């Protein structure tokens, strides 16, 4: 007899329906699995066998063939265990076919029959839309987000069978008693003392979606500042929330108690992170990488110069197109990768500081700064130099403005921008700029001056205008024209990367 049980697996951030076909027939007793399973998948035989025995079912001593369709796709992980077990039961007529009709099964089996959680349940359930899905208890919330109706949960195999045959009712999914993750958990901007320019830069980056580079000596507070950026961003809207939750689920990360991720994620990969972990991939499953996990949130790269060149190259596609396409010989996946990039770096290998305190010779400094050039250098709309706060500021009594009030302004500015152009200011094209960010005469003169002095490239010109537009939205919302003050502030936030070396060449008489 052949049993055909619906299940699913994950590829990238999407679920792929998998049909588990089990055939129990004549022939020498044996178990054969086909359909490109990986090692974990193959091991399911032992798990399923023990689980069936623990639940007092019989393991048929006949020829069992399990086919995981479609064959063209690799299956990995233990998520198909439950489906295989049910298939064996149905095929060996220990469970009536009628009882499993209209159900799909996801879950890993323990040797005692316990049903264990698997990663990626949300996208998997999403791909099985017309059917009731049976999932482990820990995955209840994820399944609920994606399912059209109520998911079926169970703690072990025996329960699943009992509920299927109708001897027991399915357990209801516990209502979430937690409110969504408290915003108070996010670090607050009031912890930052002094540093008015850096705080303003954070506000600008949050309001306009501008990528930001923080340049400063060790101990200047770059990491602290970057960690406070998510607290300034508004909560995710419904679509973005769902997208982010799907990605995190596909990666196997824990979701908040409420199920949905409501706040912009903050990812801070260490500079030793491999390219694959950064960008996504892997040989079988094509798991999402850091760039995808940071979607709709912030990707923070501390010590930018220490990242491998290949990791930095991998950021090019996400920054240009907002997606990352990963391809392997057997499969390919397109995953979302739209984030706010914040990076931090020292101005030179020794750490820098006020003029005269740098210990590096020009060669070492040049080499260090060259690592930052290339695909990323031009992406940063904001390049802010962060200095150690003075002793008085550090020990002073009052903290700075708290995140809540800054967020207020950020949300207002974002709303203005969205209403005006339908997108955040960082996404404005040069044509959009002419339409939505006209310059006052004084501002235009200053910019022309900068271009003539070769301190601003064409690309730089557009970036300044975008940032100036955001600055205008923050300080004078409703004002259509971008004025000189806005442009000057935008220019001040594009520090040169050259460092305190006096370039002597122009001096020779």
């Amino acid at each position, binding site marked *: 007899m052949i049993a055909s049980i619906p299940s699913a697996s994950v590829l990238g951030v999407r679920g792929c329906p998998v049909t588990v076909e089990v055939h129990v027939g004549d022939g020498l007793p044996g178990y054969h699995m086909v359909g490109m399973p990986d090692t974990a998948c193959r091991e399911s035989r032992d798990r399923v066998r023990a689980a069936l025995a623990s639940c007092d079912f019989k393991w048929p001593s006949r020829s069992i063939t399990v086919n995981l369709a479609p064959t063209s796709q690799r299956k990995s992980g233990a998520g198909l265990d439950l489906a295989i077990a049910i298939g064996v039961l149905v095929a060996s007529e220990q469970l009536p076919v009628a009882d499993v009709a209209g159900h799909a099964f996801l879950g890993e089996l323990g040797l005692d029959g316990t049903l264990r959680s698997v990663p990626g349940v949300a996208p998997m359930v999403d791909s099985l839309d017309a059917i009731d899905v049976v999932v482990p208890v820990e995955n209840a919330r994820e399944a609920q987000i994606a399912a059209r109706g109520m998911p079926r949960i169970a703690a072990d195999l025996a329960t699943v069978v009992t509920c299927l045959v109708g001897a027991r009712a399915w357990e209801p999914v516990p209502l979430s008693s937690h409110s969504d993750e408290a915003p108070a958990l996010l670090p607050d901007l009031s912890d930052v003392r002094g540093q008015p*320019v850096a705080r303003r830069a954070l506000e600008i980056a949050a309001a306009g979606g501008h990528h930001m580079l923080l340049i400063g000596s060790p101990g200047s507070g770059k990491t602290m500042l970057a960690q406070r950026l998510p607290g300034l961003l508004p909560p995710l809207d419904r679509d973005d929330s769902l997208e982010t939750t799907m990605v995190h689920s596909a990666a196997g990360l824990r979701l908040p108690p409420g199920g949905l991720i409501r706040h912009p994620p903050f990812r801070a990969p260490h500079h030793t992170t491999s390219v694959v972990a950064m960008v996504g991939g892997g040989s079988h499953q094509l798991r999402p990488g850091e760039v995808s996990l940071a979607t709709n949130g912030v990707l923070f790269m501390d010590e930018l110069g220490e990242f491998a060149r290949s990791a930095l190259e991998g950021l090019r596609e996400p920054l240009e197109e907002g997606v990352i396409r990963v391809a392997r010989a057997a499969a390919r996946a397109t995953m979302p990768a739209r984030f706010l990039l914040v990076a931090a770096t020292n101005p030179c290998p020794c750490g820098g500081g*006020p*003029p*005269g305190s740098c*210990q590096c010779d020009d060669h070492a400094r040049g080499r260090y700064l060259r690592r930052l050039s290339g695909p990323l250098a031009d992406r940063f709309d904001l390049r802010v130099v962060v200095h150690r706060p003075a002793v008085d500021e550090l020990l002073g009594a009052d903290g700075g403005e708290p995140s809540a009030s800054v967020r207020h302004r950020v949300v207002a500015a974002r709303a203005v921008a969205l209403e005006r152009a339908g997108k955040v200011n960082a996404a404005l094209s040069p044509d959009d700029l002419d339409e939505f960010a006209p310059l006052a005469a004084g501002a235009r003169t200053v910019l022309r001056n900068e271009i003539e002095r070769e301190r601003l490239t064409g690309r730089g010109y557009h970036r300044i205008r975008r940032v100036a537009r955001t600055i205008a939205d923050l300080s004078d919302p409703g004002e259509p024209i971008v004025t000189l003050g806005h442009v000057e502030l935008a220019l001040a936030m594009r520090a040169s990367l050259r460092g*305190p070396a006096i370039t002597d*060449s122009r*001096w020779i*008489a």
Partner: protein
Amino acid sequence: MGADLRTGALAALAGLDLVTTARLRMLLAHHEPGEALAVAAGRCRPHPAVEPMMTPELRRAWALSAAQREHGEWAARCARVGVGAITLADEAFPEVLRSDPQPPAVLFFRGDWTALDVRRVGIVGTRNATGPGCDFAATLGRQLAEQGVTVVSGLAKGIDGAAHRGVLRADGRRAVGVVANGLDSPYPRVHRELWNAVAEGGLLLSEWPPGTEPEKFRFPLRNRIIAGLSELLVVVESRERGGSLTTAREALERGVDVMAVPGSINNRAAAGTNQLIRDGATPVTEVADILLALGLDHRRSHPTAFDSRPLPRGAEALVLDRCRADPSTLDTIVAELGFSITDAAMTLARLERSGWVRESGGWFEEVGPWA
């Protein structure tokens, strides 16, 4: 022996393995350069006074390297670059170095010895100099040259280079540069034009023949020559440790007075000079201090160069004063002067555009009047 071949012999000698100033001095005291080279090569018997110095190891090393240094070849090489050589035996050898505790055995030169015939002041300082420090060094160089005083320095990055640039703006004949490598290869590379300008207008000196690399140990040795050639040494900027402090010590050993430019307590590059002043060096805040120490009439008026920059007023003047006191950042202006961020950015930008401040790496420094 023709002048060229003599130079070639000296160049070949000075570049031998295991040769030191003391050994060269001993050799040249008793032999003509050509003969000395033959002695080193083992072709000739050394003078009895020189004999004890010639250990078997030394003989071997010299024979080997002399075999590869043919004086005709070196003569051509020196002629190509315009390098000459003099020893203690020559009349042109600077008097003041004859009586030095450690005089050089040979000096390779490009340029004109008359540069040493006037009053001489050494100006040295750190390679990690600040903008204002370099500006002041250049100003001193220019003003001293205008008064007909020669400036001796090391042509290093930072203060040394700035001082000579100032000199060249006034009178190229007043520049004397002493370097730590061969005269054929400007070091550091960015100073190539400066080297050539000093060699053409003034005098360029080295203890070592063309082709010598600027190895670290040569710099302290070169510093003693700078000290030896100066009547006064002015240290413009130095950290708590540095080559210019070595030069200061060499100067004191030779009875040459040391003067130093005081600096802000927040400026690391002023730590060494402030310490020198604590230890008794006379402070220098303008060229008149140096001219006074030299005994020159400092009341002779020198025209101040016309400063074409528009004078800052109001907010700009406040910000400029702050940058003058110490290099400032945007944060400093906002926090200490109470400006709004936008106003601070606009004021600093205006000052930068009118040439009053210079920005690098987020720090704004005052730009002095053009040296």
